[in-house]
């Protein structure tokens, strides 16, 4: 979008109270109405994909987990599923069940975190405090299972580290009962509170066609009626045995996104209960060779924010040849930039947080060269030099 010199430009970020992570936005405003928007990302670009090529398959497990602190388990799961497929290893069912259980616990934690942050951006701090207080329950459960609140490191190549004992299962059940009750309360707040509805209803409405056109994914798309969910479309782990129901909403506005995410939390609670009641028996790990056979694989999982895609190439050595990550937050930016036009400036923080952006996921580097054929390989030194020169 070209900058109109007659219009007033409001810059937001990279350090800004409304954002917990660095990103830079520019909004062109005419009075109070936004007439154009642009985003500058890349403040969190660390060079992980290239870094992965210098680490062994096992070391990468921990690097990939730290792409994002909120959805760390799904990153590790997508990576391990890919590597296990390359190695031709069959993982025990119990390990898959525990992975799925952790993934759904993580979805609850992520959605409750988002509910609080989004309410905070809308000036509704009471809901922020309530949802973050209750979120500590699921954080406690994750800590009791794994020993850490954020990066659980549950995955190993070929299995999981932790078992779910019957005492743990009882505690999880107790925690879930509490969370379910609280989520009923949040649903009531979101659907009945008048000021809240005033801030969300008919704000940033996206039709189904527009969501398809802009390539929206995850809960953002599902709130516009696009029934797309990798857990259903291409089941991984044991989602074929414990299927989830795709939660959609037809309104397409911010209000719909709140309802979809709270409904998904209920669905996660149901799935976790089902897994706990029908936990498959067996081993936790299986052996995976140190050298992974040469080949290429694409692995897809449903992160709390949408589809997460990993492309992994191996040349038969102890280190991957290429790991390419496509994260859901990046796909949803175009929806924000196109929906912003015509809205009031005061709606921008809520619209931004409506897609549940995760900047640490989406800051990747892409090099586009027109007209050049054939593969291009950037060496470590060349990339490092490019990075230093670029930001000089």
């Amino acid at each position, binding site marked *: 979008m070209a900058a109109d010199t007659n219009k007033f430009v409001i810059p937001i970020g990279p350090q800004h109270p409304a954002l917990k*992570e660095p990103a830079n936005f520019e909004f062109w405003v005419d009075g109070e109405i936004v007439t154009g928007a642009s985003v500058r990302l890349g403040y969190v670009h660390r060079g992980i994909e290239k870094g992965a090529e210098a680490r062994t398959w096992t070391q990468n497990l921990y690097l990939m987990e730290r792409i994002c602190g909120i959805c760390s388990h799904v990153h590790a799961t997508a990576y391990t599923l890919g590597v296990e497929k390359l190695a031709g290893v069959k993982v025990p069912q119990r390990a898959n069940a525990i992975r799925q259980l952790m993934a759904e616990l993580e979805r609850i934690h992520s959605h409750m975190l988002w509910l609080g942050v989004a309410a905070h951006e809308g000036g509704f701090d009471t809901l922020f405090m309530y949802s973050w207080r209750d979120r500590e329950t699921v954080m406690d459960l994750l800590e009791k299972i794994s020993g850490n609140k954020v990066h659980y490191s549950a995955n190993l190549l070929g299995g999981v580290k932790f078992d779910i004992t019957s005492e743990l299962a009882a505690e999880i059940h107790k925690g879930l009962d509490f969370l379910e009750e609280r989520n009923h309360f949040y649903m009531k707040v979101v659907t009945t509170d008048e000021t809240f509805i005033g801030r969300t209803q008919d704000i940033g409405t996206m039709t189904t066609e527009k969501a398809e056109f802009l390539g929206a994914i995850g809960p953002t798309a599902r709130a516009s009626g696009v029934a797309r969910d990798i857990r259903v479309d291409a089941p991984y782990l044991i989602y074929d045995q414990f299927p989830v129901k795709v939660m959609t909403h037809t309104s397409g506005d911010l209000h719909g996104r709140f309802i979809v995410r709270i409904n998904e939390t209920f669905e996660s609670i149901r799935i976790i209960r089902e897994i706990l009641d029908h936990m498959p028996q067996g081993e936790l790990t299986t052996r995976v060779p140190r050298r992974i056979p040469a080949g290429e694989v694409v692995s897809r999982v449903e992160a709390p924010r949408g589809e997460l895609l990993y492309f992994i190439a191996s040349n038969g050595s102890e280190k991957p040849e290429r790991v390419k990550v496509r994260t859901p937050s990046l796909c949803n930016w175009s929806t924000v930039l196109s929906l912003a036009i015509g809205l009031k400036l005061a709606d921008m923080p809520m619209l931004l947080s409506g897609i549940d952006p995760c900047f640490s996921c989406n800051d990747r580097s892409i090099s586009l060269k027109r007209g050049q054929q054939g593969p291009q390989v950037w060496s470590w030194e060349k990339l490092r030099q490019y990075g230093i020169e670029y930001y000089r």
Partner: protein
Amino acid sequence: MVQQTLNSSWQNVLTKVTAWARINSPWAIHFNSGSCNGCDIQILATLTPRYDVERFGIKLQGSPRHADVLLCTGPVTMQARDALLRTYEQMPEPKFVIAVGSCGLSGGVFHGCYNIVGGINELLPVDVFVPGCPPRPEGIIYGVAVLLEALKAGKRPEPIQWSGSGLDGVLHSGSGLEDHHG
């Protein structure tokens, strides 16, 4: 312009009052210099009802011009470096820096990646290091408490000498905060 000086007894009182105010209500600003979000959600968690640092007068502040303490996370990416330096320069003196998380200490798991500087103390003078990936909220509160204790004594915090048991009780105890909800 001639600097106006108070007579020494008034100056003493003024110093005491500002020190008292600073210790009882440190305002913090949070800057993410390329971290994975893990430390940031833990910092945010310290503000919410389970841990609630506002009862100690610690408040997260939007503008660097109002802040005393910079809570910084992440391995400092090349692009965030300038923004971090600018944020620090905008803070009024005296200012203190707390580096939160393994990445802020050394680059952590990203050590050696091509786009990071690696460690906040390569750019800024760091007063307190809080280790962990990510640190527990109790750990972050303890880091702030270490800073405040040192300020009470009228100096910057000294490097922590590992004594084997001293920190253990504080960082890993249940701290009696369980079952706070419900």
